[in-house]
């Protein structure tokens, strides 16, 4: 007598009117999920880009030999490379050749950058075994005597503002996702209360026939979870389609920075979990709203 069958549950669910036209909540959840998936993707991709950038920059530095006189510059380069290769804090030191420098300058100087008479600094690419500030200071001091015109720049230091900006974007995306989740829960609770009002007479009859609050809440919970699932599927698929389009466009740009902004398997897995999480959130929010509202009636 106390065991309910699945068919019984299905029949009981029909107590609520199923034919009340298009459900706005499906589309609201779809929009919420669309924005949430895009926001989460932005955050995840930015986090991955920041990670890739850090991997590229940590432990790397550039030495510029600034001497204007080419002969002096060349002599200082030779001494500097020899000095650097002996330092324990330096894993490797490689001179960037003139052609490579000309290629780097081409966007600004055009073919003039390849002019051998052009007084451009010589550059030595360093890979550091120890990238602490103290180690960098020791490298700087060692170069002071052998190459007085040398200037050393740690990549991490001059890219720090970029990394800070990327972390800010990640934080904003996380806040955005949380706000959208909160807004979704609020919308679901409002919809559940509106549904309760719309079916107040039916709910009252069910109570008088001995329905528990949980039985009533389950009716709404299932219905809202189903609507949320449909909306979540629509929103997520639309967002994923847009992400695939954007990632294809980004790949076409060939940018090193954007190249790091990929989602990876873990990122896609997180995005795939979002609709499930939102459906669960909607079901819980509906149950909470209904049981709280029913507690106020006898």
């Amino acid at each position, binding site marked *: 007598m106390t*065991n309910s069958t699945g068919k019984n549950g299905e*029949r009981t669910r029909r*107590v609520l009117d199923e034919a009340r036209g298009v459900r706005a909540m499906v589309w609201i959840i779809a929009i919420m999920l669309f924005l949430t998936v895009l926001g989460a993707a932005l955050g995840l991709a930015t986090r991955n880009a920041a990670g890739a950038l850090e991997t590229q920059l940590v432990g790397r530095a550039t030495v510029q030999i600034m001497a204007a006189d080419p002969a002096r510059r060349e002599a200082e380069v030779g001494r500097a490379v020899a000095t650097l290769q002996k330092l324990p804090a330096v894993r490797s030191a490689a001179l960037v050749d003139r052609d490579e420098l000309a290629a780097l300058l081409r966007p600004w100087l055009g073919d003039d950058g390849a002019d051998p008479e052009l007084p451009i600094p010589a550059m030595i690419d360093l890979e550091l075994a120890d990238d602490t500030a103290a180690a960098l200071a020791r490298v700087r001091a060692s170069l002071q005597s052998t190459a007085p015109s040398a200037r050393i720049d740690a990549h991490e230091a001059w890219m720090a503002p970029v990394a800070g900006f990327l972390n800010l974007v990640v934080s904003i995306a996380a806040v955005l996702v949380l706000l959208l989740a909160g807004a979704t829960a609020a919308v679901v609770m409002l919809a559940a209360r509106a549904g309760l009002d719309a079916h107040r007479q039916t709910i009252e009859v069910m*109570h*008088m*026939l*001995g329905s528990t609050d949980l039985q009533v809440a389950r009716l709404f919970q299932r219905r809202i979870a189903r609507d949320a699932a449909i909306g979540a599927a629509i929103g997520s698929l639309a967002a994923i389609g847009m992400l695939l389009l954007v990632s294809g466009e980004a790949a076409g740009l060939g940018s090193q920075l954007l190249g790091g902004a990929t989602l990876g398997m873990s990122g896609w897995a997180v995005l795939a979990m979002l609709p499930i999480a939102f459906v669960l959130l909607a079901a819980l929010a509906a149950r909470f709203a209904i049981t709280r509202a029913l507690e106020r009636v*006898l």
Partner: protein
Amino acid sequence: MQAEVEAVARIVRWRMWGFEWEGTSGAAMANIVQFENVGLRYGDGPETLSDISFALAAGSFYFLSGASGAGKTSLLRLLYLAQRPSRGIIRLFGEDAVTMPRARLPGFRRRIGVVFQDFRLVPHLSAADNVALPLRIAGMPEADIAEPVSEMLAWVGLTERAGAKPETLSGGEQQRVAIARAVIGRPEMLVADEPTGNVDPEMAERLLLLFDSLNRLGTTVVVATHDLHLMHRVPSAQMMRLVKGRLHDPTGTLRHPPARELA
């Protein structure tokens, strides 16, 4: 008439009726309901019911009468736990119904069948599904529901209308569905508010026979009605009369009903 009594008896002896209601075995209780100095006030208005004291003996049949506005529906609402009183004591099935926690109310409500004056059928469900609703709420397996529903619909003469939605049923048909829904769970107490107001005299008599048969099987029946003819059809029934929110009980028999042997 004997054939009809047997038919009713068959209907009210569902196979599923082997279970006991929560807490009591029915026959052990002398008074199923007890009101002591109960008052009911809606909001800040005057008392709708004042100093209501009575006891309903288990297995008895009561008619509740009174002019419109005398408080019949309010008294019934207190009986079927739709309302808590503003003051006084109500004991239902041996327990204090005034301070009873909300969580326990559904279990008690399943022991009470209610026929609402305005039927209150669920508009999206068919007549059969409306009748089946109490059994589904009680968690009865679907396989056990079809037969009692079909027999109950046959009794109220609605077999052909089993699949009809309430909006397509006449007032009388809706009332019969509401009655079938109220009695299908074989309640310990049946509370009916003007249950024959929309049916023809023949159907009214049939329905009263159903109530009487349920009563003979131990269900306490309380029927609010204006219909004097109906009241005379159940000679063993006791009368409760409300006058301006007060129960008319000059002899005190409603306060102290004689205990009654159950069928």
